[in-house]
Structures are given as structure tokens and as C-alpha cells.
């Protein structure tokens, strides 16, 4: 065995992949819920950033990581509520508002950070992990996967819950109807606006949590623009997954794995230009699309505003 690929190093790589993948997964999962209900949520990057900022802020001042996650989710939801108001209720363009929210959130968090933290750059303490008895004793994957901050287990549970809601509840049917044929949902006596509002708020919650995770667990610090396009990758993941939550999880982990592979190659001193290595995850996705490229099955009503009785 080489001196490099020790158990500790492999563990760190897997751990890194998971830690990088979780925010992408939360964003993708959130986006998927919105899209299922017919709302193209381009503002997800902004929701993540606000979530990262509020999550960090609260975790830092209260010392409670959980309060941080809670307020990060609330922060994401606050941005999402603007999206719900402007796009779902009033029917303003989802693209305009989405991008506006992202730009505004970028500016606002950078501004606040500048006045609050740019002298001190506070950093959080290490996040406590929760060992799952038995599993955590496994070599390599034990410490990498089963001795992690409990929020990770919760995030993964969110995938299962979403899958369950989609597949086996009336709410799942309603979400799908809202994206496929909102008029039919309305005629069945379900308030389309309410369903979509709920979906968008849930997206905000998940994206905000993803941002908070990134700041609290991923980095232990907030810096401006730290989401760095994660929201957009979330959008891609959601669309690739075609409505299946589990695929979002797999896609996010694959993405994280690509990042870890990049690091591993570099640490191993493989002499490929760094920029070439960094094209890896994107090239992989494109290759998948070229090989398996089938008709994308986006909800027919995606992006369009629903007005009852309009022609």
C-alpha cells in the first residue's frame, strides 16, 4: 500500500465528498420540489447565501449549531417568501425575480459581512459528530459516513421524506399536478397558489439549510460569495434527476466525489494541469447527457404563472 492512500486519507476524501455534496443535494432537492410544482427557482443561489449568512451569524453568536441551522433555514425561507409573493402570487417573471434575488443576496451578505466581520473573520468551533453504533466502527467508511454531524443524517433523511411525499401522499399528487396541469388541480378544489407557495418556501428552507451547512460545517466561516455557483449546480442536478429525489442525492455525491478525486489526484502529485482536472465533474455530466440523453421530462407548466380561468 502506498504511503499516501492510508485509511485516514481515504476517509478524508470520502468525508470531503460528502461534505461538499450535502449543500448541493439540499439545493437540488429544494429546486426539485419547486420544479415539480411548476416554479423554476433561479433564486436558489441567493437563498443559499442568505442561509449561509444567517446560519453562521446565529451559530456564532449563540454558540448553538442547531440554532444556526434553524435560522439558516428561516433565512432561506425569507428569500423564498419574496419569490413566492412576486412569482407565485403576482406572476412576475420567475427568471427576473430569481436573478434579482440572487444578485441582491450576494450584495447584501457581502455588505453585511464587510461591516460586521471583515476585521475579525470569526470562525466556528468544530461541529460535534454523532457516531452510529456499529456502523461507525467500519474501516474507512465508518468514520467517513457514520461518525458525522447529525445534520448530515437529517439531510439524507430529507431525501427519503421527499421521496415518500412524492410517491405516496396526496400532497405529492398535488405537487405533480401543479406542475403538469395546474388548471386540473384547481378544478379538483386544491389551491394551486397555496401548493406552489408551499413548494417554494420548502425550497427556501432546504436551500437555506444547505447554505447554513456550507458555512457551519463545510467551512466553519462565512465569506462573501462563498456558495460560488452551488445553487446553479443544484438546478442542474434537479433537472438531471427528473423528479426523483434519490437521483439528486446520487448526483450530488457524485459531484462531491469528483471534487475529492480532483484533490486526490493533486495530492498524489499527478502532473496534469489543475484546470484540466477541474473540468472533470462538468465533462462527466455532459458525457452522461450525450450518452443517455433522452427527452427531458420537465413539467409542462414549469415557469408559467397560473391564473384561474385565464385563456
Amino acid at each position: 500500500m502506498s504511503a499516501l492512500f492510508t485509511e485516514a486519507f481515504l476517509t478524508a476524501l470520502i468525508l470531503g465528498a460528502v461534505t461538499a455534496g450535502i449543500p448541493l443535494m439540499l439545493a437540488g432537492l429544494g429546486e426539485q420540489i419547486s420544479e415539480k410544482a411548476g416554479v423554476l427557482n433561479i433564486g436558489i443561489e441567493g437563498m443559499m447565501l442568505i442561509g449561509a449568512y444567517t446560519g453562521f451569524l446565529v451559530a456564532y453568536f449563540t454558540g448553538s449549531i442547531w440554532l444556526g441551522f434553524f435560522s439558516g433555514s428561516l433565512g432561506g425561507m425569507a428569500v423564498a417568501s419574496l419569490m413566492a409573493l412576486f412569482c407565485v402570487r403576482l406572476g412576475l417573471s420567475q427568471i427576473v425575480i430569481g436573478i434579482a434575488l440572487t444578485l441582491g443576496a450576494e450584495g447584501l451578505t457581502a455588505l453585511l459581512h464587510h461591516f460586521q466581520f471583515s476585521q475579525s473573520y470569526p470562525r466556528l468551533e468544530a461541529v460535534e459528530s454523532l457516531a452510529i453504533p456499529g456502523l461507525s466502527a467500519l474501516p474507512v467508511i465508518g468514520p467517513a459516513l457514520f461518525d458525522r454531524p447529525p445534520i448530515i443524517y437529517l439531510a439524507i433523511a430529507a431525501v427519503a421524506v421527499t421521496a415518500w411525499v412524492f410517491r405516496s401522499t396526496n400532497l405529492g399528487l398535488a405537487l405533480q399536478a401543479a406542475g403538469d396541469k395546474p388548471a386540473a388541480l384547481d378544478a379538483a378544489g386544491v389551491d394551486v397558489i397555496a401548493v406552489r407557495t408551499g413548494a417554494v418556501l420548502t425550497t427556501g428552507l432546504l436551500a437555506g439549510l444547505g447554505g447554513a451547512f456550507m458555512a457551519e460545517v463545510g467551512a466553519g466561516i462565512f465569506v462573501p460569495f462563498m456558495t460560488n455557483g452551488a445553487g446553479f449546480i443544484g438546478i442542474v442536478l434537479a433537472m438531471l434527476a427528473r423528479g426523483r429525489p434519490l437521483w439528486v442525492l446520487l448526483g450530488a455525491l457524485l459531484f462531491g466525489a469528483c471534487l475529492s478525486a480532483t484533490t486526490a489526484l493533486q495530492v498524489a502529485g499527478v502532473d496534469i494541469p489543475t484546470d484540466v482536472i477541474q473540468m472533470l465533474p462538468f465533462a462527466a455530466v455532459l458525457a452522461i447527457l450525450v450518452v443517455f440523453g433522452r427527452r427531458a421530462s420537465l413539467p409542462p407548466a414549469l415557469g408559467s404563472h397560473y391564473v384561474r380561468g385565464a385563456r
Partner: protein
Amino acid sequence: ELKSIAILTPEAGTDYGWNQQGVDAAKAAGAAAGIEAVVAEDLGYGDVRPTLRGLAQEGAGLLIAHASGYNTAAPEIGAEAKIPVAIVDRPDALAAGAVADYTCSGHEGAYLAGRLAAKMSRTGTVGIVVSGEPPSWNAQSVAFAEGAKAEKADITVRYAVIGPAAYADAAGGKRVTEALMAAGADIIFGQGNGSSFGMLQAIETGKATDGGKVFFIDVIGDKTPIDKGNLLSSVVWNLTPVYSAMIEDVKADKFGTRNYGIQLADDSVSLLKTKQIPDDIWAQIEALKKDIVDGKIKLTPKFDAESVHAVVTQLAVAAE
């Protein structure tokens, strides 16, 4: 007559790094010369021509374009507005009365940092984490690795770049640093604006493979005010002498006849002494510094990424 100078920086002057050193130095040099120093920060890496023209119009007598990304635009606008400009990373652009370069390479300091790291590493592995591969960082990465190997020939030097345009990727900084720590590094030489705070967090909350503390060696600025006990040292760049010299040259109508640089010799590059460094080791470092200043140790900066990849430890070597 020279009434004011202006400095343009890509990011905020509060980063305990490149931007802050530039801004602080411009203010200090201006104050020393009794002239105003205008600061335009956070300009990003896009088109700074409007800002350059604006500052020229406002009467700046010297434009300091404090980013290698500005070194095409600044001479152009300087020529247009007939104002001297100072740029980085283009020594060949020297033009009398118009352009002078202050390519900063902290490679001498980084070499010392490498020696220091090798002396203090318990695990025999040190790591370099960068958020990108600009020339000045490459030069320091190479020098750090050379220094470490000069100190201990069999030391392992691990290297990783965080990601695409990752200057703000704090989470990536933490992730990659943790990977290097897991690969055995107990001293991390980190270069990377916003992301360096992620590296620092990883070091503060993690452990080396031997269970002990991991140390961080920073570059350019001095993070002592925000240290939690893991800051081992920093390759500090002091630009005040550089800017002061420029101001003098402008006043004396000699600007553009020479370039400027930073070096150990005049303390514009220095290695930060923290209380983590034992006195005896520090004394050895001081001696090495003298050797460099005296020319007994010869160092040439290498600015390209390939040189970095060539000096860091390859897997094949490690597997032996």
C-alpha cells in the same frame, strides 16, 4: 507637483492579505510623504479602465494598479492620461516617466518558511494549499518546497489547488486542507484570499495524523489579531518602502527608470515570528535569512505552475 496617489485593489482592503497590505502601505507611504492616498478597493478582476480614468481625472499623480490583472489596462490609461502608473508582474513594461513594475515575490521568505516547516514538522509531511495558481503564489510554493527539502531531504510535500476561481471558496479551502492533514501534513502553507479562512478553520478544528496540533503558515499579511494559537508564521510583505520609493522617484522625475521589488534584505519581506516558534529554531532561521541576504544561498523565483508540480512530492516517490 505630486498631490495624491491612488491604489486600485481587486478585493476589500481588510483581508489580512494582498489587498490589505497594498492599501495599508499606500496610506502609510502617502502619510509619510504628506500626500493624499486614494483607495479604490473591491474592483474585481473585470474592466478597471473606467476607474483608472476616473482616478486620473480626479487628479491622482500616480496610479498603483495593485493586481496583475490590471497590468495591461493601467499602462494604457496611464499613457492616455499622461500619468505614471505602477503595475505588478510585468518587469519588461518599464517605461521612463510612465510605467514601473513592482513584482513582488516573497520566495525568499517562503524558502525560510519551508525550512521552518521542515524543522518543526513532527510527521515529516507538510502541505501547500492554494486557491489558484497566480505567478507570485507559484514562486512561493516552489520556494517553500525547496526550503523544506533543503532542510530535510526526505520530507514529503503535498500540494493541492482548491477549485475553479476559488478565491472565495472557504468550504473548499477547508475540505482540501482536511484532506492534506489526513494525508499526514501537520504544517500547512496556505495561500488564498477568502478561502484561507476556511483553511484556518480546518486547522483549528482538526488534528494531525499523530494526534497533535496542526500549524498554519500564512502569506502576505499578518493574521495574528485573529489567531487562535495555530498560526506558526507568515511570509509578510511590506509594501510601504516600495511605494515610498515610487513617490520619491515621481517627485524626482525618475519614475520609470527602475523597477521595484521586495526582499529579505530591506525587510520588505519578512518571516513572522510567533510565540509558537521556539527561540532556538528562530535563531537558526535568522541565520538562514542572513545567508540569503548575503547571497550564500542563491534563490531564483519560478513563476509557472509546472515548476510547482515538479517540486511537490509525486505519488511514485511516496510509494517507494
